[in-house]
């Protein structure tokens, strides 16, 4: 069977992601340096292949490739890995790659099952706004996926630290993890290789600071498009309302983050909730609730 260029690129992307995720996952637990040197280039290769695939698809079909679940999930996976790569370089955070790239691979593979072949877009999607609004919204989801993964790491370390604090008799300089590690606890020694809670919290904040402006512009451009195609910039359609809900959750995150006493445990739980709300907005609304975004006239 002969594969077309976009199929070759898709197989390359998926294959690279799976291998990168495995390598980085093992790296996360083992901290064997060489695994990072295998995983990181594979993640980058997969990401490049994915963007190339989207371009190839557009070139081959002439149809903007992001207008169905397959296309948007492809971009979601690609952007999540791209944003993550930026963070991995900036904060030496390749240890989280197994989770981000692994999730990206799962979303991408799920997206492929929705590939129905080429279809011309329905009239309401035939708009230049489709080329602006969809990438913005999907990129914001991707940034939130990255913040979600780092929030999970934060919460894991936080609860481990609390457990260590019960073990070590007094809070030592540098926190309970340092003390427990010094006392020979292997889990604490491993946990010490992760960034500190404060550093993790900063990474999450930075990722949300990418996602929140993006989802804000996404909602604004969506409103502009809606004004052009449905007659009103805001229709309280379930999809746009679910996006508003996520926006409110992240707004709450940002406001809580301005308060010292709420920064950390609570904000990171809000960030986890935020991503769950994004998943609901992305899949839940499409699957359970029909509205204008089911793209009928």
């Amino acid at each position, binding site marked *: 069977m002969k594969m077309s260029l976009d199929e070759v690129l898709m197989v390359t992307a998926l294959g690279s992601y799976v291998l990168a995720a495995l390598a980085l996952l093992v790296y996360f637990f083992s901290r064997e340096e060489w695994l990072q040197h295998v995983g990181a280039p594979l993640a980058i290769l997969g990401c490049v292949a994915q963007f190339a695939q989207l371009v190839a698809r557009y070139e081959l079909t002439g149809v903007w490739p992001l207008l169905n679940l397959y296309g948007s999930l492809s971009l979601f996976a690609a952007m999540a890995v791209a944003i993550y790569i930026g963070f991995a370089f900036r904060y030496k955070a390749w240890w989280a790659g197994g989770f981000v790239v692994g999730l990206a691979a799962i979303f991408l593979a799920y997206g492929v099952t929705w*590939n*129905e072949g080429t279809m*011309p877009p329905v009239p309401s999607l*035939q*708009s230049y706004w489709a080329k602006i609004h969809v990438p913005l919204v999907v990129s914001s989801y991707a940034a939130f996926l990255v913040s979600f993964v780092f929030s999970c790491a934060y919460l894991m370390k936080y609860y481990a630290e609390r457990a260590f604090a019960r073990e070590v008799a007094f809070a030592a300089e540098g926190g309970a993890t340092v003390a427990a590690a010094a006392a020979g606890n292997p889990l604490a020694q491993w946990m010490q290789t992760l960034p500190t809670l404060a550093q993790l919290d900063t990474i999450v904040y930075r990722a949300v600071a990418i996602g929140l402006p993006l989802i804000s512009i996404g909602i604004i451009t969506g409103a502009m498009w809606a004004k052009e195609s449905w*007659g009103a910039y805001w229709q309280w359609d379930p999809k746009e309302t679910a996006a508003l809900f996520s926006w409110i959750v992240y707004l*709450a995150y940002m406001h809580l983050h301005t308060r010292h006493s709420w920064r950390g445990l609570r904000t990171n739980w809000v960030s986890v909730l935020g991503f769950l709300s994004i998943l609901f907005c992305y899949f839940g609304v499409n699957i359970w*609730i029909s509205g204008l975004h089911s793209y009928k006239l």
Partner: protein
Amino acid sequence: MAARVKDLYGDFVRTFGNVLFAVCLFVVWGLLTLVGVVVDQGKDAPAYFASYAAPIARAILRLQFDNVYHSPWYVGTIGLILLSLTVCTFKRVIPARLPPLHPVKVDKIPLHAVYDVAGDAAGVRRKVAAWFAERGWQVRDRVFDGVEWTFADKHNWARRGVLIAHLGFVIIAAGTTIYWARGFSGETAVFSGQAVDVPETHAVIRLDDFHYTIQPIMTKSGIVYQPIDYVSHVTVTGKDAVPRKEVVRVNHPIDVDGTLYYQSSYGFGMRFVVTHDGRTVPGLPGRVLFEGESFDIPATARSVTYERFVPTVDKQSGLPSADPRVNDPAVALGATENGRSLGDALFALGSSVDLGEGWRVVPERYVLYSGFQYRYDPGIPLVGIGAFVLLGGLIVSFYFLPARLYVRVDEDGPGRSRVGMAATTVKGYDVFSNEFERLVVRLKEVTEP
């Protein structure tokens, strides 16, 4: 009395000016928003009783969750957010924007560094000040109790990001309120060859022609009939009474005297011919009917409902096919007697349907109609401006971190100085710790002779 009012005012300001109160309001706002996603909006009461258990349906209706976005809860919550935002902005955000310069206990601040260098204090101080100034920091020297301090501020202007974001939200709220006060919207449908008068604007829209394009596409899961285009050719007459020809398509609304008209739907009206004992009865039903409309048969207790247009009937099964293009059209008609259903059935266009007692009805031909939404919203420019102001505020708040460095240089023996440096930001210390470390390293290099 005055003291009580003052106390109450104090409590009000403390509560409404608190970020946690704001977050509580966000939680309520979020939950109400979610209610509208999960509960279908704008249905009539029986629809809720059909979908939910009776107590839940009753609760939905009583709490106005069937139209939650216009309920007092929703509007009230947004009102409280605006109030809280205003109080907070004046009581907390503005006063906190430009903290005065004051000395600090360097080693009590989490971000601090103390190191020794060669060189006299004045010279080192000059180098420090010059280095920060070169990098765009705003440098100010002050003497407190005989100690000379150097203060360096970065992105001080960005402290206004919160104000800008809050202002953006207020502008959006104002824009939406204008629509509530002065705007309107509605829907209208026009049959080909006919005209309608839009009640709010008195514009007249005549539909000269409507057509659509639907393309069958083979996909992995079977054939899909993909709509490609809907086009209405209209003649519109606005306030100036001059008719003009326009084309309305999806994503291409037209503007008539400030009101926008959008392509929103289409459908098939039906012209019926009714005969009694073989003779046509004129004026019955008298006009083209929309789907769902009925007409009574005179001198009987019967009425006929034009239920649905079926563009294509499957030849083999005789049932409606999924093809929305008109190939073998038929109509679904229902009949009632004294309000009781006599059943319904599918009839080809042009076929004659026997209604008993000499009455017959012929669905003669279909007439396409085009549905338009129209909307007048004088708040749009304001909402647009507010959106961009809000966005600007978000970007300024998230990407430009106002930071202040406190530096003191003391003599530490002949020809030696001790540099003490601490940093604060509007977002705590952690977000700045990497940059602070880098700053300390670079500053050490610079102050080394």
